């Protein structure tokens, strides 16, 4: 047997030690033949990153491939890297490989070490189960050859991950790699949460093992290079732990000044602390620093800057008060007032020019009412039926790929299928055959167009699928699926579907409906009961025979409809139940088609949404879209829709929340929004303890600025009285913002309504933002104008 046969057998058995002993005693030529066979064998094994042959393959390659470059690329091949190894297996493997390589000349080892280090990938070293073996091999080779420490990024990250911080003092790479710690971008990610490293480095600095200045300068340089907070936090922690002396802070103050405007908050705080403790800043630096800090989005930093300017004004009033000027443009009232107080306190000692500038900045600006924005609304567009068989084919093909089609699209496709199946039966069947010529089992089983297609392609198999597919106990879905099931049975038998909407809202033009019924008469067929029922429920409110509105009562959690809603002149099947009992035992499914079920009675649909919305306040389930559809539908707006809107404004997901704002604006444009009623619904939601004031404030603020200020004021006025905190109680996040929205809208609309409890909060005194905003609102409502 040749050496290669032995080695291959050992590889296939997964015996790395055997491989090592075979090749260790072989001569150079025999090893070369093994090296030639390896790539082919590796390929034939198709390892896909796992397999017991990997370790022996690595050993064989390391021992037999002649060149350093060849060994390096062999060991770092994608399919030969090892990520999941037990500690002892890992160390044994590293030992085995490095022992075999130890026979090579020093220069060769140094070269191989450098090449492996250069080929280590940062991402591999950052992974939780990482490529430690190759790092260790590179490290051993480098050290035993006495070569310079590799600085490749992957090697540095590997060093970070593989080194015990407690043993750093004796680490051979420490001095060479320490600077890289502060230069490599990925190091921040690798060190995230590694307090042990920070502690160890502090200890080394204290013991004089590493230079403090290297650490401090490294941190500052790192801050300047920028990045996200998670990449910088470790350095901020280290900097803090090193506790700089006054001189150390002063030596770096120019850099700290530059960090103030744009560094992440935590870093800016740290830099500000250093700037603050440094004496002898000149006036330009003071103004620069204050300008940067006052512009920051973090209130905490702005407040700290104001405090700093207050203190500085004692010794250098002119410079500090000039630096204070940008604060008068701040949005938050309490900060603006604080700035005014500082100015008032020190103005007397300031020079004439500064006093003049302050007077100008604090002078009441004549309220320039922003140009009124009128929300606009265009009536829902007409729905164009599918015009040709080619278009139907395209739509069906789309349904093949899009499993979660919008209800409106789905209904249009089904309607087209019904029409063409009746009028061009043979061609339609041919089209369907072409579509299902591939393997479209899924489509035929799990989509409504597919199940409907069964009626033509495989008669007799559709009903069972439809019955299975339409199981639901959620009333709107029961209603929807009952009609879909019926449609499946109607394919090829009726000329047209009665209930296909003619408007995007779901409405049907009464004339079109009459014409469709005429086609049934001509064809001599009876319409499906569910289809007819749905058609009648989709008549516009001004049509003859429109169903009266049922009474709806609701709480923030459920709506109840105090009457059964059935289309006139029809025996009527089970429509909407009055008790929403299905919650938690069923799944709402997509709700995007609900509004179009009863486009003239939106309260009913809103009431059926209510049980779900409270559970969706952190989720995006399309509730924003359905709220908007309800705003575009018809029928009175009552407690159910107002409650649903309140829930919509309370959603975390920005996209859903803006759907609710769009709905408010649409209602406003149609003159159907009653801010007072919305306020009542919001207050009721607040009573359940699940209202997030900041979300409401942002949504209402958007609506106010986009053209509904009067309604927003009324809503805020209805909500605020239940939100006032007792003295000393924690202020809900966003409450001052909500008061500011109320003030803003009071100002634009000139509202004078009283808000219960407002005067009390406004009179509490103190400089908290809550009290200041309340006082401003109170003043506005009592006729004071800014």
């Amino acid at each position: 047997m040749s050496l290669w046969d032995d080695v291959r057998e050992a590889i296939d058995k997964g015996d790395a030690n055997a491989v090592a002993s075979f090749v260790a005693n072989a001569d150079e030529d025999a090893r070369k033949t093994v090296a030639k066979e390896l790539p082919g064998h590796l390929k034939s094994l198709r390892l896909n990153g796992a397999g017991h042959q990997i370790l022996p393959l690595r050993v064989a390659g390391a021992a037999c491939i002649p060149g350093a470059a060849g060994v390096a690329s062999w060991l770092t091949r994608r399919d030969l890297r090892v990520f999941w190894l037990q500690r002892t297996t890992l160390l044994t493997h590293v030992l085995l490989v490095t022992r075999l390589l130890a026979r090579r000349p020093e220069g060769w080892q140094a070269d191989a070490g450098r090449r492996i280090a250069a080929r280590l990938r940062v991402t591999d070293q950052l992974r939780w189960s990482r490529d430690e073996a190759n790092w260790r091999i590179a490290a051993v080779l480098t050290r035993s050859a006495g070569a310079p420490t590799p600085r490749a990024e992957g090697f540095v990250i590997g060093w970070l991950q593989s080194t015990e911080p407690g043993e750093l003092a004796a680490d051979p790479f420490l001095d060479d790699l320490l600077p890289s710690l502060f230069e490599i971008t990925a190091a921040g990610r690798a060190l995230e949460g590694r307090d042990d490293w920070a502690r160890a480095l502090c200890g080394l600095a204290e013991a004089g093992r590493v230079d403090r200045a290297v650490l401090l300068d490294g941190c500052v340089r790192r801050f300047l290079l920028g990045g996200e907070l998670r990449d910088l936090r470790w350095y901020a922690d280290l900097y803090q732990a090193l506790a700089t002396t006054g001189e150390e802070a002063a030596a770096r103050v120019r850099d700290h000044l530059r960090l103030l405007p744009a560094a992440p908050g935590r870093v800016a705080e740290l830099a500000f602390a250093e700037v603050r403790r440094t004496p002898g800043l000149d006036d330009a630096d003071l103004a620069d620093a204050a300008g940067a800090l006052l512009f920051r989005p973090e209130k905490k930093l702005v407040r700290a800057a104001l405090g700093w300017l207050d203190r500085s004004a004692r010794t250098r009033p002119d410079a500090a008060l000039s630096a204070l000027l940008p604060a008068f443009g701040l949005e938050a009232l309490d900060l603006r007032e604080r700035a005014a107080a500082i100015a008032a306190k020190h103005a007397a000692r300031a020079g004439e020019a500064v006093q003049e500038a302050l007077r100008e900045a604090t002078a009441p600006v004549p309220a320039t009412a922003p140009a009124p924005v009128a929300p606009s609304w265009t009536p829902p567009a007409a729905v164009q039926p599918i015009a040709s068989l080619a278009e139907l084919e395209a739509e069906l093909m789309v349904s093949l790929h899009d499993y979660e089609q919008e209800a409106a699209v789905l209904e249009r496709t089904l309607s087209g299928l019904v029409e063409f199946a009746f009028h061009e039966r043979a061609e339609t069947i041919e089209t369907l055959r072409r579509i299902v010529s591939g393997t479209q089992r899924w489509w035929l089983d799990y989509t409504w167009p597919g199940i409907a297609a069964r009626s033509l392609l495989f008669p007799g198999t559709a009903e069972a699928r439809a019955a299975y597919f339409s199981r639901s106990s959620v009333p709107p879905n029961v209603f929807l699926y009952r009609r879909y099931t019926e449609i499946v049975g109607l394919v090829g038998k009726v000329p047209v579907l009665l209930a296909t909407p003619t408007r995007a809202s779901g409405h049907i033009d009464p004339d079109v409906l009459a014409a469709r019924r005429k086609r049934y008469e001509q064809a001599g067929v009876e319409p499906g009961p569910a289809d007819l029922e749905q058609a009648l429920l989709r008549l516009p409110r001004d049509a003859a025979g429109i169903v009266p509105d049922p009474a709806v009562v609701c709480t923030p959690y459920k709506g109840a409809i105090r009457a059964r809603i059935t289309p006139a002149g029809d025996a009527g099947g089970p429509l909407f139940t009055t008790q929403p009992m299905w919650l938690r035992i069923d799944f709402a499914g997509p709700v995007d088609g609900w509004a179009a079920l009863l486009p003239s009675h939106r309260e009913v649909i809103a009431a059926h949404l209510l049980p779900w919305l409270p559970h969706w306040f952190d989720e995006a389930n399309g509730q924003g879209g359905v709220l908007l559809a309800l705003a575009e539908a018809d029928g009175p707006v009552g407690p159910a829709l107002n409650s649903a809107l309140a829930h919509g404004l309370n959603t975390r997901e920005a996209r859903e929340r803006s759907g609710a704002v769009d709905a408010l604006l649409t209602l406003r444009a149609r003159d159907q929004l009653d801010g007072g009623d919305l306020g009542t619904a919001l207050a009721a939601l607040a009573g359940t303890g699940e209202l997030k004031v900041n979300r409401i404030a942002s949504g209402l603020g958007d609506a106010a600025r986009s053209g509904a200020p009067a309604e927003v004021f009324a809503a805020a006025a209805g909500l605020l009285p239940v939100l006032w905190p007792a003295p000393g109680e924690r202020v809900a996040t966003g409450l001052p913002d909500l008061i500011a929205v109320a003030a803003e809208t009071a100002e634009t609309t000139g509202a004078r309504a009283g808000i219960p409890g407002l005067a009390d909060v406004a009179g509490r005194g103190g400089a908290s933002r809550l009290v200041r905003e309340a006082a401003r609102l109170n003043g506005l409502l009592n006729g004071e104008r800014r």
Partner: protein
Amino acid sequence: MATTASPAQGYSYPRPSGLSGGLLGLSTSGGTTLAGPKAHPHFFSGLLTEAAPAAAALLGLADVARTRYFQPRPTGFRDPVVTCNGDRLRLESFSACGGVYARLDVLQQALDGEVHERGTTNVDVNGPLREALARVGGADPLHLAVGAEELVVTTGDGAVVEKKVPLPDRWLRGFAEVQVITAGFDPRAELSAPEAVRFLRGLPGRSRGPLWAVPAGQMMRLGARPVPGAVCLAGPERLRTMLPLLRFAKALRAYGPPVEARSGPMSSVWELELPGMRYVLALSPENNRGFSGEGAVLDALAGDDVAADADLLGALLAFEPRVEPDLLAERAGLDAARTRAALTWLGTSGRVGFDAAEAAFFHRELPYDPARVAALNPRLRSARELTDAVRFTAPDAAVVLSNGQERQVRFVDGKEYCTCPWWMDYRGERGPCKHVLAARMVRDAEKETAR
């Protein structure tokens, strides 16, 4: 993804870029100038009067270049491209994911010095330079030298800098195509500085699905649905590099294509006006969509003579800050439609960029292997290969045999349909598929011969 598999780009700088002693020296690599190719062109020497915003914007540009906004992970860094158009300097970069394009236009008002040459090349950006840029502040001007050998002050040992970064085809194509995609955009909204601050700081960190920025009076509101006049904002976190620039901002402008109530996600352009300069970001329609997959340009490129027209036009360009299509058409003797198509071709070949603020193309030559930049769009190439496999079964219906599968192409009322999976996934929103393109080419050729 194996980085070794994609072609690499080599940069060679005589020395690293650096900033010291109040001089910002940007080192140039091989590029094109008015006088032809040059190893290290020298574009500008003089004063940068608005140093702080320029430094901050350069850092933003570098951040875009090193970020992968979709599935973030550490990534290679491609040096920005600088173009000297005579009266202004433009610096461009393109994100690693291929979905965000950034450009800094330093206008005449912020430059006081001498233009030595017009042209395009890469400039070196390195760690020490980033650090030094972060140290720029206050009101003092900086001396700026782009490519001036004798002036560049070196940090470190001043050795020659050789870099090699992977340069995948789709990245390169996206960089070129974004110009043509945004060329049809109109201004949709302009926000004052305070409103810009409020808008950009109020953006959600992430959003599922695209948001639509709706102009409302002097502000913009984020909506969940497309309405006429709105601008699509997909992946609002991709505007993040504007945040550090806000303190210099004078206005924010948004540009986009026309939007209707049923529009799908779209690209958008956001322009932050800074003193003497503009910082521009173009965003792809979705986080996971790069610009290269958008087939918006294919309609103009399908014709046969476009390439020849483009050659003709290309020879007339002279690194103008604004390319005037009428003037160009007259000089080349082409009609307006052919000029437009030829400009699109030049755009996808990386030879013109588009400036939304000026609503005009500008001349620049992407400093990458011209053969690769000019390589035909792969979809167009596939379509040309498919033309033999097109069989018209009716005037408005064709069967295209592709990879053993029959695809049905229909032309209905000016709309096109295809039965391939790609078309079904995007429904024409990313341009025509190769089958539609092939069928269209065959049909147009037949019309031509019939005439």
